[in-house]
């Protein structure tokens, strides 16, 4: 099986193998994995990848899912054009 084609984070193209390799190097903290790979930081804000990453950490470290902290959720929780936050978005070219 080609491990490199199992995608965990679609937004930032992170594979299962990349996350497992980090854990094998001793990086088991989800916040560290997040900062190193940018999981959870793309347009979907972790909706797809975070539960998968938590399961990989649990499987590799023997921790329970309950023991793994959920990374912070921050505003904006949706992809938003920056211009809209300032005021009217000007789409006209």
């Amino acid at each position, binding site marked *: 099986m080609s491990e490199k084609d199992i995608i965990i984070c*679609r937004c930032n*193209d992170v594979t299962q193998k990349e996350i497992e390799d980090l854990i094998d190097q001793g990086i088991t903290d989800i916040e560290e994995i997040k900062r190193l790979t940018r999981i959870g930081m793309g347009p979907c804000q972790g909706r797809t990848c975070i539960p998968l990453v938590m399961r990989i950490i649990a499987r590799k470290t023997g921790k329970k899912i309950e023991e793994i902290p959920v990374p912070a959720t921050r505003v904006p*929780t949706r992809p938003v054009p920056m211009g809209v936050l300032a005021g009217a978005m000007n789409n006209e070219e």
Partner: protein
Amino acid sequence: MRLNEHPILNFQKRRGKKIKIYFEGQPLDAYEGETIAMALHAAGIRVLSYSGEKHRPRGLFCAIGKCSSCLVKVNGIPNVRSCITLVEDGMRIERQQGKEEIPKTVKPPQWKDAIKVEGDVVIIGGGPAGLMAAINAAKAGAKVVLIDENPMLGGQLVKQTHKFFGKREQFAGVRGVKIAEILIEQAEKNENIELYTETSAIGIFQENDRKLVVAIRKNKELVEFWGKAIVVATGAMEKMIPFENNDLPGIYGAGAIQTLMNTYGVKPADRVLIVGAGNVGLILAYQLLQAGVEVKAIIEAMPKVGGYFVHAAKVRRLGIPILTRHTILRAEGKEKVERAIVAQLDENWKPIPGTEKVFDVDVIALAVGLRPSIELLHQAGCQIAYIRELSGHVVRRDARMETTIKGIFVAGDAAGIEEATTAMLEGKIAGISAALYSGKSNISWLKEIEKTQKELTEFRSGPFGKHVLEGIKKVMVGEINE
């Protein structure tokens, strides 16, 4: 391809005016009222973007604005969620190539204050829970504002062609799509309810005793929704599973397939493999047959079918094989799904070599469960906990659906994965509780809450309900009503 004949749904009646859109310069037919992703799928387009790092083709996955797998460029602007953005005549759509830049020709925005909308109760999400919360909060005396990021209210009810179980007052024997119509009409007719569709909540804040939901309307304007209480009824998100090429266009969440065929009348595929034999997978199989799609098989990793026996029996009668103890090894295809490779599992959940089967399918449906959408509650600071029986992380709450932040309530799948009937009952409780909290309601409404709590307990008395109740006990703050 579009569906024109369906045993239950009439799409000709539903479709809006025919218009022209352009994809990569090519003109395509679309109908007003449908989303970009649906029009593109109807035209046979599966690849919506190429990813930035590894240049992998990507397509639709959740179809309800949550997964951001369907981003395209619209009139030069990248990162548009094509699954919840409506088509407009003359729209120019292009495939997105990784993280695109905003064109240099775009003028900087003009500073402008946000539009302000005031209510007593602000409800986020217009599915079964949110609509029931709105209707009952308004009945109880509150001025209600309800927002939903989809162009259409009703949540997942709008795609359910099957009839519901339960009691008569819980819409037993009525199809989900009809229940949605009834609830939407009640909400629209009520003078004390203001409805905002295509409006995404992006954050929850508090100022003294008032709460603020910041939202973006039609991806164009910032709106502040102010209220005394908030009900979060944001529903659920489809789960993804790891297997080779699990991001190939044509691997869709079960809900996305229902959106295509049951909401917009677009034929989702010719041949489908369903992963997961819970109720969602079983009902999906039946709905696919209604839409004229061939279902090759349903595979299930567990040793037995997870869904109701009646649904499984119906599916088997129609000749669809259900393979338990099977898993998907990989998807294959150039740019989009052409084949699915599955294998049998041993007692240790390891694929048994030599048991591989190949299914020639153009869509793989993932019906491997949902998880609660708690992002806004988590951002607001509500306490959360991982509860397996409720299918993921959920917020702590009491019997009146109030979270650990006073005045913030939760209802429906966002409070734990269950079903539409319990979502409606929870929505009713949360709506009345929020109206009481806002100070606009009368204490006599407590009786209605107690009555609804009893109905919930009755509905949960079956084997599925027992499992959920175990989870609710773990997450409950204060006394549990039984």
